[in-house]
């Protein structure tokens, strides 16, 4: 049985047995290369489910939108390892209870689609541990390397040009599982912390503030980057922040639901290199 069939059967079971009220997965998109989020509520819906290398989006953000979990009923969701890490962070930040989420894990790393054993976030700890070990060895990206090599001025110019394209549609924020704030700082007007206008300064403010808010919380799922309608390579900003946090605090976000948020917790032996 192929993985897709295997998982369709699993989804049917989950729904027909009443173990979950919904399974969030992937369905066919407008074009053959597109997948779109699919919300399955009856066993028959599983027939529309797809699973392949094109299933890239991290769907965990849907769990915390518009009160889906407020009835305490369980919801199943198809996740890659980064998605599982998102669940851990959301649980650690008290946005959901990990036991309310049934995980249908899969991975597409190395081109080949494979199923991952486990049904709750805690079942994936060993896998995530190994991800932490290999994190510094992430596949090199030529553009990323080039940006890292730039002088501060060159880098500033590079991002200035990229941010000048920003239209402040907030697709990056809305697609990010970590951007769950009921009222984003950019939407607060008493005081107005960030210019809402989409000009160079306002765009800079927005993108930099978002990068800071994601430091130590981003799992590099790439949702923001893929969502950006003007193709700003947002993944690089968050990746760099992630490297920094790993290096300075030995923190790899989303290891477990009990992992303390790195920038919201204090340890006596925390390095204080940032204090000038």
């Amino acid at each position, binding site marked *: 049985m192929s993985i897709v069939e295997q998982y369709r059967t699993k989804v049917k079971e989950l729904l027909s047995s009443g173990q979950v009220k919904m399974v969030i997965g992937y369905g066919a998109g*407008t074009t053959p290369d597109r*997948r779109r*989020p699919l919300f399955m509520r009856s066993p028959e819906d599983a027939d529309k489910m797809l699973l392949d290398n094109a299933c890239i989006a991290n769907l965990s953000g849907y769990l915390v939108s518009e009160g889906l979990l407020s009835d305490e009923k369980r919801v199943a969701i198809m996740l890659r390892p980064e998605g599982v890490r998102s669940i851990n962070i959301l649980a650690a930040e008290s946005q959901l209870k990990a036991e309310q989420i049934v995980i249908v894990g899969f991975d597409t790393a190395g081109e080949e689609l494979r199923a991952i054993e486990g049904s709750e976030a805690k079942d994936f700890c060993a896998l995530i541990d190994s991800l932490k070990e290999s994190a510094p060895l992430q596949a090199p990206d030529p553009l990323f390397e080039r940006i890292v090599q730039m002088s501060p001025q060159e880098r500033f110019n590079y991002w200035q040009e990229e941010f000048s394209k920003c239209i402040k549609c907030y*697709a990056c924020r809305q697609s990010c599982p970590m951007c769950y704030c009921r009222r984003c700082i950019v939407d607060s007007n008493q005081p107005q912390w960030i210019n809402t206008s989409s000009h160079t300064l306002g765009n800079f403010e927005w993108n930099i503030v978002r990068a800071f808010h994601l430091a130590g919380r981003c799992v590099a799922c790439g949702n923001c980057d893929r*969502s950006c*309608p003007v193709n700003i390579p947002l993944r690089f900003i968050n990746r760099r922040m992630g490297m920094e946090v790993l290096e300075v605090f030995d923190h790899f976000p989303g290891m477990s639901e009990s992992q303390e948020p790195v920038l919201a917790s204090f340890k006596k032996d925390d390095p204080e290199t940032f204090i000038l």
Partner: protein
Amino acid sequence: MTRILFADKLDNCLERWRSAGISVIGPVKKSNSSGYSAVTKAAEFDFNLVLPERSIKELFFPQSEPLMRYEIKKQEINTSEFKAPTSERIIFGVRPCDAAGLAIDDPLFGWDYQDEYWFQRRRETVLVTIACTKADDFCMCTSLKLTPDSEKGSDILLRPLENNSGWQVEELTDRGREAFKIIADLLQESQEKAAPTAVVEEKFDLEAALAWLKEPENFESHFWKEISMRCIGCGSCTFLCPTCHCFDIQDEGDTYSGIRRKNWDSCSFALFTMHTSGHNPRSTQSARWRQRIMHKFNYFPGKFNLNSCSGCGRCSRQCPVDMGITETLQELSKLLR
């Protein structure tokens, strides 16, 4: 015999127009993103784009438009107005759906109160449209009763030649004729045939969808919840849309000086309609998606006898979760059967 503008004359045209004090803008791809930008050399144009990612709207309704500069002193408020530029310009290589989008928004910006920021730019701009010979899976102009060679909103319509060496010229308005008078001697009479226009299949039954939307009881149909479940509430579709015109007015500065601006805003955002009291008439994403569809295909036609959509398909093409007007109207038109 038709008048032809050969592509190799384009640099001369740009030169002529520049000498006449007219700036030229066209489809350009840079930093991995495409839109309509200033062009000085013909080589900068990218006519191969099916459609630039960013619509033409921003050239008439910028994403952030300064309105007033204010300066406050004791018992005195001094303001100076920002006005839309008065310089003439030609947008060369407009797609028909983008040109139509501008024509759709004219009545809105002129409805009793004239928005001079819009109309000043409209008056100073000549739209030279190129008929589409290519379309992609998201193009849907024909579903909106437009065509890949629609003249709506355009001043000049160019039809690409079969051998791609230039364009047949059709002058549609006086404004277009004026602009092309400047380059008249660079055009040549020729028998060259125009390439066939793109085939864009009709993706939904517009009339059926409109009829469904007109029924008051459908306003609270469960359909809205179902179709918008995966909407994440970003403003990508509205900001890329050539006809979405909603905006916010924001002051930037402090108590003493600053600038009041008119910024793009989006009905997708939760904050868009939120009252200060916390009451929000459109508090769910489904209500907000319904607003977008109803506004375009029911309220707008009710007021201006036009659908507020020109079928460019950007909303679907660039949606992070593969939603869009096409899918919604396709599903809607099925509901009647």
